[in-house]
């Protein structure tokens, strides 16, 4: 079947209009079928309570992806991986609540630092409520211990001033600024 140019133009225009109408109708139906929520599905206090429970895992804790320990990692840490979590910020914080009735006197951190090729070591500062330490980080895994004041609520601050990305140092193609990968933490009680 052959069409004249005028017929083709008319067919195209009608086709376009019909398609637009049908798509518009479908779009309206789809939007109407899935209305937005009117308000929060749970109360604010309930949501906060859920988060507080997350900060009280069973010790020792692992920082592998999916483990309860990752909820202790505050600002400065990247997404958790299957073998730990990289600290990518200049500072990183661990916040936690010790088990009820327990009085923590120290925390032990297992970690792997990123030390660019050619450097002997890097420097990291750790601080808690009663302890401050400047640590030299060497290639390979290591454990650090930091004193705590025995209170139930604790915060440990890690500071990496000289961290660089493997891309910048020429070691690998990872563009993240890597300080240390935290693997595990355990508490010692009074």
């Amino acid at each position, binding site marked *: 079947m052959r069409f004249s140019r005028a017929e083709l133009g008319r067919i195209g*225009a009608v086709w376009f209009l019909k398609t637009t109408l049908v798509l518009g109708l479908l779009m309206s139906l789809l939007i109407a079928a899935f209305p937005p929520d009117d308000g929060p599905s749970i109360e604010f206090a309930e949501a906060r309570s859920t988060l507080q429970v997350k900060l009280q895992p069973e010790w020792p804790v692992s920082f592998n992806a999916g483990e309860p320990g990752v909820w202790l990692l505050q600002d*400065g840490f990247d997404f958790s991986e299957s073998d730990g979590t990289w600290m990518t910020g200049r500072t990183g914080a661990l916040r936690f609540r010790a088990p009820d009735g327990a009085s923590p006197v120290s925390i032990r951190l297992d970690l792997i630092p990123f030390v660019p090729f050619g450097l002997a070591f890097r420097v990291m500062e750790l601080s808690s409520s009663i302890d401050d330490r400047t640590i030299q980080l060497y290639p390979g895994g290591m454990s650090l211990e930091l004193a705590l004041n025995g209170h139930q609520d604790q915060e440990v601050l890690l500071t990496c001033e000289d961290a660089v990305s493997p891309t910048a140092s020429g070691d690998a193609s990872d563009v993240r600024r890597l300080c240390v990968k935290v693997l595990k933490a355990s508490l010692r009680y009074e």
Partner: protein
Amino acid sequence: MSDSNQCDPLLSRDGVIPSVSADCRDGGVHRRHARDRVGLSLWLIGPLVSGLYSLSLGRHAGFDYLNVRWFLSWLLLRDVEGMPGAVERLAYQPYVNEGVVGLLSLTGAWWFPVAALGLVHGLIIPLSYDTCRAVTPSTNRLLVTATALLTLASPLTSVHIGREDGHLLAAVALLVVVRHVVRRGDHSNGLLVAVLIVLVFFIKFSAVLTVAVAFVAVVFSLPARRALQTLTSFVGVVWVAIGVSSVNIWRSQGVSRQFALGEIVLEPRVFVAVGLLMFTVSLVLCGLVRLGVHRFLKLPSFWFRYRGLALGTTLILISVGVRAVSIAGDPRFNPDSLLVVFRRLLSTGDLAEGVTLGSYSVRDLEYAYFDLGKGLAILVAASALLILLFRVRGDSSAFGPLHVAVIPGVAVWANMASYGYVRYATEALVLLPVGVFALLSAIDVRRILRSLAALLAALVLLLPALGLGGWQGYGHRVGRPGHGPLVSDQERDVLSGLIPQDSAVFFFGNLTSWIAPVVDRVDPTWFVKPLRPRDAEASTAVLFYDLANVADLDKFTTREWSMTDCQALRFENVAVGWCRLDANQVDE
């Protein structure tokens, strides 16, 4: 000569530039396609395979999607009024793709948009097959099928299958245009071509150079009168599209109303005046054509004889112009010299491993890849252009396929010369198999040689798909790929619970705005830049921030907010910081 060969452009003329006769276009080719069971089955197999492959990749998790697109489309579809803060600027971009993806996401089922887009992207295979068959009907069907399948197997295109970035959605529309023009030839519908070309642009803003090259090539492939009709339709459709898309800007701006597309912002009276001028010019041109003035000026014969030459010249001028202007893109990729452009054009991508980014670098993508498409596209385009420039004989449809063959390579070149970023040339690379067959249809060689050449081209496309070059594709580290929803129902409830009713919510840093469509609530007021309490008209607020941007949170403390109760929310697939904000007591 068999009946099938009568419609083969290579075998239809002896010693004359190959062509596809009107009879073949309107009769033979169409009848052949009606009987083509392979072609028909690809309409089922292509989308099905693509849809399943897309599902195997998991949920949509691209950085741009989680960072901007999902939020923007949700705002538009939910008709959230005002769009305070910097969200307003997002309205200046075309959002057809965002609207489609956002609409599909409203269902809440993670697999629905993934499967739907996969199915649509799979249409590229039968469209590519149909177009290749239309330009070379006598070429081995198995070879055409294999090449059509490889359209989506090439690394630089396969990474977009089922994904939400819009490149393949735009490519589907572009392929429909090319298929229509190749099959209809001189009888192409100018309005339909214009609508689809503009749609491609409005789906993917970054495809602007590919759209420009494709449109110029398509217009030059048509007879003078049809080309004029397509051109005037295009201008009209663009104007209507800008008008329609500006409705959203009007909603966000209130009194100060403008028409805008990207950086082009017009006052309403200027918009109307230019539109009227274009309408008048179109009417005058159509009137002149109706009166037969173009025949008096011998325009058709002039156009017919020299349009190949004119296309080549136009594209070369466009290319030089594009390079001279060097459209501002990501400064990490903008090439700083022609040498860099040529190195990137010839780069297969694997050399980029371990090479830093920079305007001088050979890298044209964030990640290493291995793909031979760029080089092949340049080779095909250069060959087609040479034929167009130096052979001006032929009948009225002699050069149609050659124009199509030019598109991928010239578009890749234009993108490399301006942006230097290969992802923006994705739509052009999708057209590469069609370009190969289009070129082969115009070269007067034996069928067996043409098949061998097509086989060689298919092999070039196939090698990376077989794993040569150690291609690793795009990384989705930030976006958290995987199967299942981005956040579970329980996690969504916690997120929603942390946003009190009718509160002000600030998003700060990357990968935070996805929270709005996830909780899908319209009672909060959403802000994407730090504002003072009086500007936000709130005394308390909620802040969601990127955990990597904690050092910049002083933008809130220096704007009369106090942060309390902060917590890193480390859900299964996403992590984001949350704080409660309280306005400081300020002495008046």
